[in-house]
């Protein structure tokens, strides 16, 4: 091992991972990505230093050691989600898993029909994969969720056509954290012989997943939202009844032909360890996180004119998405730079377009713009939450003092009815 590593013991690494220097903002963006758990990093490092073999090399122990590690990790991933290891296919992340599941299944079963049902609040990796299929001759229905973010099962039923071949509904939403009833949706899919894909990138380690008992055919996972490394994910492909997918990446025939490409052993090892820790600790961890979330929620609700986006009951405790009315979104983000949060999904937060997820819930552009996603995780402390509440209270107050709209609201003027003069 390198000198650097010898000097960096596990304790130091824990400290580094959890330590906030004076100038470092408090990290409340766990839904964008999580830090790698130091225990995970410690497991990964030997597989880029000593055991560096290509798991596809069959002629020497360098390859065998890597392959064994890959298979152990596959078992850990399978265990967390109640699957058989043979149902787990490695990918480079949830984006690839979603692309592989949707394009792979739609193309394989296209003779049955070319209609796909999904939801307007899915992650871009699902929406854009479906759009790509539309370009290639498929038809798609993008269901609007209810104002609480949940899908109305009756609307799903009504969307089914004789040629519906595939449905894709996420388990936990990345922006608002709501949990869809995938059992109910899956049962309807079974009755109608529709392949059912679930994006579970935001769900692992947060909700129980038991694929043994879930009517789900394909499920996407990734490591970096569950304290594992970036660049690694997996797709669950059901064996009984067997689901077939068309490979999207061709080559050496890795992963039983479903996904070619040299496996990144250390990343796979990292995902296995991250999922093992999640399985062992999620019950306890979720209690702690729910306490912190409730504290944050109650603290922020003391601020006037705040709106929680998405249902609070069917929701992971890690997520709180709140709109601060009469505050300009960009100014708010700038004002709270001492905490690291998202104003939308991380993937779209570079754009100034209001979140498409919040708009799908029927939020006005203004409310969508002034929304903040707080996502809490393993290393969040009560002090972090206290600080956040105080920061929001003072900054929202300050911004509203400058806002003519806030004055008008306070004077009892209904802003929606104001006739603005043209410039």
């Amino acid at each position, binding site marked *: 091992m390198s000198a650097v590593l010898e000097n960096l013991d596990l304790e130091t690494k824990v400290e580094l991972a959890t330590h906030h220097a004076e100038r470092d903002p408090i990290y409340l*963006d766990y839904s964008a990505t999580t830090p790698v758990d130091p225990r995970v990093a410690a497991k990964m490092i030997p597989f880029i*230093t000593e055991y560096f073999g*290509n798991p*596809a090399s069959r002629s020497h122990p360098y390859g065998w050691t890597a392959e064994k590690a890959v298979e152990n990790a596959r078992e850990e991933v399978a265990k967390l989600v109640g699957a058989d290891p043979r149902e787990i296919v490695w990918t480079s992340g949830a984006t690839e898993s979603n692309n592989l599941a949707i394009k792979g299944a739609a193309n394989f079963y296209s003779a049955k029909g070319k209609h796909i049902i999904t939801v307007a609040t899915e992650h*871009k990796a699902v929406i854009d994969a479906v*759009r790509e299929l539309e370009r290639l001759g498929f038809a798609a229905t993008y269901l609007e969720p209810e104002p609480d973010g949940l899908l109305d099962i009756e609307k799903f039923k009504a969307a089914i056509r004789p040629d519906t071949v595939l449905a894709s509904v996420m388990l936990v939403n990345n922006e608002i954290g709501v949990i869809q009833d995938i059992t109910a949706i899956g049962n309807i899919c079974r009755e109608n012989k529709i392949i059912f894909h679930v994006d579970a990138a935001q769900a692992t380690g947060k909700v129980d997943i038991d694929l043994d008992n879930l009517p789900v055919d394909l499920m996407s996972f990734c490591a970096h939202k569950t304290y594992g490394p970036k660049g*690694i994910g997996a797709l669950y492909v059901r064996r009984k009844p067997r689901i077939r997918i068309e490979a999207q990446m061709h080559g050496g025939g890795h992963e039983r032909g479903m996904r*070619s490409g040299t496996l990144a052993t250390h990343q796979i090892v990292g995902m296995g360890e991250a999922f093992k820790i999640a399985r062992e600790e999620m019950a306890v961890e979720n209690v702690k996180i729910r306490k912190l979330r409730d504290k944050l929620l109650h603290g922020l609700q003391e601020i006037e004119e705040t709106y929680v986006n998405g249902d609070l009951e069917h929701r992971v405790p890690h997520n709180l998405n709140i709109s601060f009315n009469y505050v300009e979104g960009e100014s708010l983000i700038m004002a709270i730079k001492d905490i690291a949060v998202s104003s939308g999904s*991380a993937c779209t937060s570079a754009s100034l377009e209001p979140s498409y997820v919040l708009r799908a819930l029927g939020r006005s552009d203004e409310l969508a713009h002034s929304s903040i996603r707080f996502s809490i995780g393993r290393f969040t402390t009560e002090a972090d939450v206290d600080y956040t509440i105080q920061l929001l209270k003072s900054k929202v107050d300050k911004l509203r003092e400058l806002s003519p709209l806030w004055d008008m609201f306070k004077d009892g003027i209904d802003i929606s009815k104001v006739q603005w003069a043209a410039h």
Partner: protein
Amino acid sequence: MISPNMSNVYFDNNSTTALDERVLDAMLPFMTMQQGNATSRHVYGRTVRDAVEQAREQVANAVGAYPSQVVFTASGTEANNFAISGIAGNLPNSQIVVSSIEHPCVTRPTFAMQKLGYKTKIVGVDSNGLLDLVHLESILKNQDANPTSLVSVMSVNNETGVIQNISKIAEIVKSYKAYMHTDAVQSLGKIPVDFAGLNVSAMTISSHKIYGPQGAGALIVDKRIDIAPLLHGGGQEKGLRSGTENVAAIVGFGVACDLSVSELTRRFSATNALRDHLEKGLVQMGAVMFGNKAARITNTSFFAFPNIEGETLVMALDRKGFAVASGSACSSDSREPSHVLLAMGISPDVARGAIRVSFGANQKHTNTIEQVDQFLVTLKQELQRLKQMTGVQFDTSANNTKAA
């Protein structure tokens, strides 16, 4: 855990390489506490975004490209798939041409395009493994066939190490208004790579073949061509490759690319000396050498011994502590003779005996002359043992034949 005996000699560097320590040092902060998502706008996100952009510059500098031409992927396989389906995908009803010695991650995505109505053609190579340029021209010239949209020829073959004249091939390809892609996974770090000079439209490179980590690759693309993404979603890499950036691997890839230039001369001469020493010994033992009449990268030696099965010899050498390959790692699962050797006109019987030694010369895992000497001694012993065994088998089968 099966643990490889670390006194083992690793002669399989074309399959994957041991990470350079300087690469690891650069990666470590991003493997532990640097948790940002490169798309996030807060300081955590910006820190990793800066790291990704620095790596993009390092990669571009190493291959004579502009940073804007670098599209990061998860592997060389993905970059090759992206090139084939991305370039040809926007040119329906065309023809895709690949050489007969490509890696499966070029040929298989090419054949997969047949289902979408594309025609495919394979260009042969000569007995030295060099592309048959007359054959290439005759394919490109054929007016009856669908127009060729894309030609893909690898810069250096992973099994033989033979170097193609890519700029010459690209000139021919471009004169027929087709795009040229080259898989340069095995050339980077072994010979100078110059994207602009090669005059190709797209080029694949990979991190784990140059003492970088697994999990990162890139397609270098001339942005004047219209290329369609393989992965759709969050719009990363200017929409050409969606998915959260694998920051640690990309950072490692960047440093590995830096080293592929600064260490090129040292690696070149170090492996050259080893290879010459090895091949002198091999020839004395009666080995058949493959591709050695053509220009080759200096770390690779591909050979066979008559009447000795490659797979058997590889296993025997492994028991003695030498990690070598019988073909490319991806296909080392199968017992089929190397498609590269068959394309060169080598008989299947001889091809089944093929063994590849590929040397490495990074800081820590540089192979040595002593290792080559030990290897030659062991090889000689194993050959004698195997010949005796097969000799016995021959007798038995002869008796059986008589008996029958």
